[in-house]
């Protein structure tokens, strides 16, 4: 037996511990899709990791339950998978975990309100995004919402649709920049970084929404501070980086 790198099978433990990153995870999932034994093994190991979770139990603050009540009230549930492949058991939860409540929690609600305002006032000058496009993404059947903190302050919310290869980006509370600088959005692919445009000036602490199109699978989203005219590629460190 020649072993060059860990056989995918030996990664079952690391996979069950969520200790595989990007490429390794994808490689294992490809392998597991054809390996019934691996899938079963991971299932068994997940029972052990679940016990680790139970052992780490700690009471959440009571307010959390209250917040969830409101959240579930406005979150549409997924229909069951009627004819899912068995691999789905392994790969879907991952997607599932990354897909977030589509509509309208917290910042996204704000984004939606902003869309409303944008729709009635017309798109801000120089914005390539139209409210129609934004609405299309927000209501796409595969829309996924993510929120993340921006390292220099503020919270970003994106809603993306891989089907439409577009995402809507909005942020709240971004640190104000001197006039010589702007926030610039990037789609970071395996081959090169593509600018997804400059963010508009904030209004009442809200930035955007803007739309970025041409999303490719494996892209990450990045945000940097750049000279006001924008740059062809990032020149400063990412202050936000999200795996899409």
């Amino acid at each position: 037996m020649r072993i060059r790198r860990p056989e995918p099978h030996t990664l079952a433990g690391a996979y069950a511990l969520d200790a595989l990153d990007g490429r390794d995870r994808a490689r294992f999932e490809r392998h597991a899709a054809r390996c019934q034994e691996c899938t079963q093994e991971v299932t068994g190991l997940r029972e052990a990791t679940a016990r680790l979770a139970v052992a780490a139990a700690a009471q959440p603050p009571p307010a959390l339950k209250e917040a969830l009540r409101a959240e579930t009230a406005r979150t549409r549930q997924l229909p069951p998978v009627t004819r899912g492949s068995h691999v789905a058991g392994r790969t879907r939860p991952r997607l599932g975990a990354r897909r977030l409540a589509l509509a309208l929690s917290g910042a996204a609600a704000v984004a939606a309100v902003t869309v409303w305002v944008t729709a009635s006032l017309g798109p801000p000058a120089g914005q390539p995004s139209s409210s129609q496009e934004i609405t299309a993404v927000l209501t796409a059947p595969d829309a996924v919402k993510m929120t993340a903190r921006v390292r220099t302050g503020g919270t970003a919310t994106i809603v993306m649709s891989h089907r439409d290869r577009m995402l809507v980006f909005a942020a709240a509370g971004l640190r104000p920049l001197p006039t010589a600088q702007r926030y610039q959005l990037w789609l970071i692919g395996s081959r090169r970084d593509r600018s997804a445009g400059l963010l508009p000036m904030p209004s009442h602490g809200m930035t955007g929404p803007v739309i970025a199109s041409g999303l490719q699978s494996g892209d990450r989203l990045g945000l940097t501070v750049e000279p006001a005219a924008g740059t062809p590629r990032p020149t400063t460190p990412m202050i936000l980086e999200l795996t899409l």
Partner: protein
Amino acid sequence: MGVETGPGRVSPPRNPWAGAPPPRPDRADLAALLARVAVGDRAAFEAVYDRVAAPVFGTVRGVVRDPGLTEEVTQEVFVEVWRAASRFDAGKGSPMAWVAMIAHRRAVDRVRSEQRSADRDRRAASSVIAYDDVAETVEDNLDRERVRRCLRALTDLQREAVTLAYYGGYTYREVASLLKVPAGTVSTRMRDGLIRLRDCLAAGR
């Protein structure tokens, strides 16, 4: 070690508790509750929350550390449980395993996409503590005692690899570099360690 790999290894039983006493009632209940959640039963959702909020919150907190972020991620996890309840498949594991998987994945994905190396270094120290202080907070947790005992039964390397990955949120490559051990060794120790842990926990039920 008796748990070695290789093509001839007997595959684990489909039901990890096969041969053990029947599932505890709370397991069955949780599955039934999730089925109710799948049809939009909010009361059932709250019952699920009451059962699993502490493990979810504790696990997420161990990985992300930041209190605000912990609450945010915990909330996302439960919104996901609500949304995806119809996707829970009892044939593919216990409800607790399903919820824990969503929680842990979500937590590690979040720190990996957000945190820079400085933060992670800080967590290197704390993840070890996490295993010790894993929850002085919850009263009467027999599970914790059993998990501790079974963790102690692992080799040092197995235990460190498993706890750094699970409670610290590290990738196996990161664990390898923290422990100064080849990555391939870490991945096999994680697997061996989890298999042992699984068997030890199943035996103790």
